[in-house]
């Protein structure tokens, strides 16, 4: 099967995946007990009570909550294919807009986090792997430590140390460049540890490969061997994992945004789930799924570039 064809097939299935994800969310939310109109009413009044049928009638009318589920779903899906994700119950704005406004901050956050994580992981691996007992255990310990750090805790500590106490970074920096540093680190540090461990494993394996010896017998320096031969092999698993990592980062972003009061789909998501804002939640899932799919296509691409063997097959 040709590469183009593979990508085409992948693209198609991806669309399926995306819509499926959104649909799952759609029904999952319908499954959530409690009446949407009631939620909306309470949200509008700051109450937590049960409203009478005629009090809710206008809302039900307005959003068609009374329509049969299947009708609501079909409306939704047809909307999807017209690029219409519906209108937020609470914000009275099109979901595309609700998300659109928040997407960029989240993307910058996760994207930057991924990059920083890679930089950290590679740097530390190159410096410490198989570099004598001390450096090696230093590296592995650092990785084990960071890999086990809970995002939120890193966040809170970073915030207090660097923003509140040392005042190096703003506390409510919003989306400013400076204000992005701490959230990014919050996500990047644990991920770096994780990627580092994976890369290290591979690196050690590859260092023992005969072709590495061959390179040495040609008069190549240790650093040369590491950078020009081993590294390329060693990053393969980490590349594969990066696609998955992005998914995890989105979850992490929710927490980071929560701690740093940073706008982003994470914030919107939590609010939307709380307020039963079905179109928004489904919309976010759809977008996240899309990002995930794209990310993985990129990963495949990157992989194919680094490892031509795949192109052949």
């Amino acid at each position, binding site marked *: 099967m040709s590469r183009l064809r593979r990508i085409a097939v992948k693209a198609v299935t991806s669309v399926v995946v995306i819509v499926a994800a959104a649909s799952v969310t759609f029904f999952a939310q319908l499954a959530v007990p409690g009446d949407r109109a009631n939620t909306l009413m309470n949200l509008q009044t700051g109450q937590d009570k049960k409203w009478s049928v005629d009090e809710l009638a206008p809302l039900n009318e307005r959003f068609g909550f009374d329509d049969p589920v299947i009708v609501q779903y079909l409306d939704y899906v047809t909307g999807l294919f017209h690029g219409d994700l519906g209108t937020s119950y609470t914000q009275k704005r099109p979901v595309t807009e609700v998300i659109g406004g928040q997407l960029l901050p989240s993307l910058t956050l996760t994207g930057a986090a991924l990059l920083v994580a890679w930089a950290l992981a590679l740097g530390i691996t190159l410096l410490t792997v198989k570099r004598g007992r001390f450096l090696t255990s230093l590296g592995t310990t650092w990785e*084990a*430590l960071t890999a*086990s750090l809970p995002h939120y*805790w890193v966040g809170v500590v970073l915030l207090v140390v660097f923003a509140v106490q040392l005042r190096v970074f703003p506390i409510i920096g919003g989306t400013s460049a400076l204000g992005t540093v701490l959230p990014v680190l919050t996500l990047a540090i644990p991920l770096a540890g994780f990627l580092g461990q994976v890369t290290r494993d591979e690196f050690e394996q590859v260092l023992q490969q005969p072709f590495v010896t061959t390179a040495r017998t040609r008069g190549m320096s240790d650093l040369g061997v590491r950078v020009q031969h081993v590294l390329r092999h060693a990053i393969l698993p980490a590349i594969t994992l990066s696609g998955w990592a992005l998914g995890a980062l989105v979850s992490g972003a929710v927490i980071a945004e929560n701690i740093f009061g940073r706008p982003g789909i994470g914030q919107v998501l939590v609010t939307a789930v709380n307020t039963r804002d079905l179109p928004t939640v489904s919309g976010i899932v759809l977008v996240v799924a899309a990002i995930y799919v794209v990310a993985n296509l990129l990963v495949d691409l990157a992989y194919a570039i680094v490892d031509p063997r795949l192109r052949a097959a």
Partner: protein
Amino acid sequence: MSTLTVTRAVHLPKVGTVLSLLVVAFVVAAALVPGLLVDGSPTAIDLKSTLEAPSWAHPFGTDDAGRDLFTRVVHGARESLGIGLGATALAFVIAIGLGFTAALAGRVVDAAITRVLEVAFAFPALLLALLVIAVRGPSLATSIAAVGIGSAPGYARMIRGQVLAVRQAGFIEAAAALGHGWFTVIRRHLFPNAMRPLVAVATLGVGQSIVWASALSFLGLGVAPPSSEWGALLDAGRLHITTSWWLEILPGVVIVLVAISVTSLGRTLQNRLGGAAR
């Protein structure tokens, strides 16, 4: 075949492994018989000694209800560990089902399951948790379910790969050549060997699950008070971090310690068992 074999470096120095064992032992003890490690109830309030900094009397200090934080941490071990184990177990039950079916039930089923997994992957774990919690309401069981379901797809994918790999192994064919039935071969060779490297992975999973569950509690979606599940402690400590640091820092350190220990043990195990399944 004459090549130099260099033994692979075990992750974390040996010392680390020992320390890890100690930490885990302590936590398990705390989970099983907290009474041995601390006397007094984790919920016993003492409004006369609130927000006291760590001292001999209160190694981890006290919270704003005058409860001894150390006692709470020790008693919290049961829930935290419970969630970690429970979630991982749940995840594996699901994953083994999916993974094996995918790997053994033929192309069509495989394709189908792989798609499903892909969807599941495209689905942020935390959102899944949020939804589960929205349906069931926050509780211990919910946390387990949320984290378990959230991490199942990853394992499923792993197991599938593992099974496919082992299926190629020579001893599978050898067993068949001896005239054993396919089912016997699966039961006696395929399953145990496919699951072998996953023991380590599972251990790693426990660590991650604990962290994840505490994340839920941290978002206020965790176990109900007065439980002292570690994430809940962090959530409670958050407001105090500038005024009574111990309430936020010490439980955090505990979580990290446990996570590292479990993880490093898992990795050591991984290196021992060889199969570094990902």
